[in-house]
């Protein structure tokens, strides 16, 4: 290491950005190097001067004023938004018969051009376009299509004919009701495969808020929600899945999922939520089955969280009395 490297370490040391190992390497060097010792002394002095200037934090008075002004600005912002919406609603151009005719004609022209393109542009035969190709209401954004993993199977030099396989990924923009079966299938798939936790969270939230319990009973949606509850790495997604599944009757599948969470979930708030769900039959005066009692007994004895143990004991004892 050069002196410059050690000088950088001195900087970082004052900024408390060194690991223990780096710190000890630096201290050892400083014992024998007067040049770096001078550097350390000067930097120490500089930090003391800057530190003396740091003063304190902002006053409550300034914060209070800023909050008050922000509230006013937000109110104006919301009013502005509402005015735009009102204006758009009032300026309902489709109510004019002539405009309606013009729009209809334009729409017909666009559909005609689209159909003409599809029917008369020569296409290469492609097999297995995948499920997305059959989605109604979905627009493929072909400009962004990505082709990968191309493998040549055969190539005939005389005729120029080639045969190959490839993978094609096309971004799809879709608009439709969440009550639509196809939309639900896409969302259920997204819940299992989407990488972005924010998107998964929004998917569960959309399913939970937009669908009636009967629709949530759909095998694929229910399976996706249960899998998200049990295995999603993001606690927010798991919690949203739990909230959605709580809307369903406590059948065998849901019960087993809840018991799994009670046994394996690391977040105590989730375990408490599950105990609350399992308590519902007891509160309704119904029998609580043995599987549930067994897990509750286990949790009231072994759970690391005091409140979880207390809640489990409480529900277990109520269940025993039934």
């Amino acid at each position: 290491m050069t002196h410059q490297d050690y000088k950088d370490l001195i900087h970082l040391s004052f900024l408390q950005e060194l690991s223990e190992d780096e710190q000890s390497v630096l201290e050892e060097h400083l014992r024998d190097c007067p040049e770096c010792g001078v550097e350390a002394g000067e930097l120490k002095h500089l930090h003391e001067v800057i530190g003396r200037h740091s003063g304190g934090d902002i006053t409550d008075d300034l914060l209070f004023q800023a909050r008050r002004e922000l509230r006013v600005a937000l109110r104006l912002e919301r009013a502005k938004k509402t005015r735009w919406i009102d204006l758009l609603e009032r300026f309902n151009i489709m109510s004019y018969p002539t405009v309606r005719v013009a729009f209809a004609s334009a729409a017909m022209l666009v559909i005609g051009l689209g159909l003409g393109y599809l029917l008369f542009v020569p296409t290469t035969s492609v097999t297995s376009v995948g499920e997305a190709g059959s989605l109604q209401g979905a627009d493929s954004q072909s400009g962004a299509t990505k082709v990968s993993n191309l493998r040549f199977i055969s190539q005939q030099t005389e005729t120029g004919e080639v045969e190959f396989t490839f993978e094609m990924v096309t971004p799809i923009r879709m608009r439709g009701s969440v009550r639509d079966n196809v939309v639900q299938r896409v969302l259920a798939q997204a819940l299992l495969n989407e990488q972005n936790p924010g998107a998964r969270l929004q998917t569960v939230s959309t399913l939970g808020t937009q669908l009636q319990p009967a629709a949530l009973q759909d095998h694929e949606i229910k399976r996706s929600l249960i899998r998200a509850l049990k295995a999603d790495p993001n606690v927010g997604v798991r919690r949203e899945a739990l909230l959605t599944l709580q809307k369903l009757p406590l059948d065998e599948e849901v019960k087993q999922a809840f018991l799994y969470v009670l046994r394996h979930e690391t977040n105590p708030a989730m375990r408490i939520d599950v105990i609350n769900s399992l308590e519902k039959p007891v509160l309704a005066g119904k029998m609580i089955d043995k599987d549930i009692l067994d897990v509750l007994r286990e949790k009231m004895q072994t759970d690391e969280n005091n409140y979880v143990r207390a809640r489990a004991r409480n529900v277990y004892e109520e269940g025993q009395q039934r």
Partner: protein
Amino acid sequence: MSGKEQSESLDEMLEMDLILKAKRGDMTAFEQLVYRYDKQVLSIAARYVQTAEDAKDVYQEVFLRVYRALPKFQMKSQFSTWLFRITTNVCLSHRSKTRRHTHASLDQESDTERGYSLSEKLSGGGATEQRAESSDLALHVQHAIDSLSPKQKMVFVLKYYQGYKIREIAAMLHLSEGTVKRYLFDATKRMRTELKDTFLT
């Protein structure tokens, strides 16, 4: 799981809940979200700009931008990282806007605008005598900080006055950790030069 981890996890869930509600237009949730971070935002702004009015302007602009952009926030990054990135952007652009009309007041050695100064709005100054003693130092240090380039200044404020780690600053400013270190080293070098004659001898 330790008690601290449990409480962090619960806090994370509560924040997620607030974000989702605020995204759907729930103003109470949005306000709660603001109150979680607004002191830090105002503190960064106050360190970066020159007057209390400017600090409040930055604060307001930051949260208006957050309010407008929240429906499109995809939670790919932490909310706090996204918020502080907006804060730093607003600070950086705000400086360039105010520079045009603050030269005159700098010449008059005054950091006041519309009647009161930022130093009056920063607490912890202690007794009047102590404040008088340190005012000369404060003025010189502030001038030295103002001599830094906008990004050096932002990195310097986030590190020295807000105590963020280099990796956190890198995430906020969309820079590599190496670049943040370089800005810090250059800023420190500049500060040494600026303060050498008066305080470091």
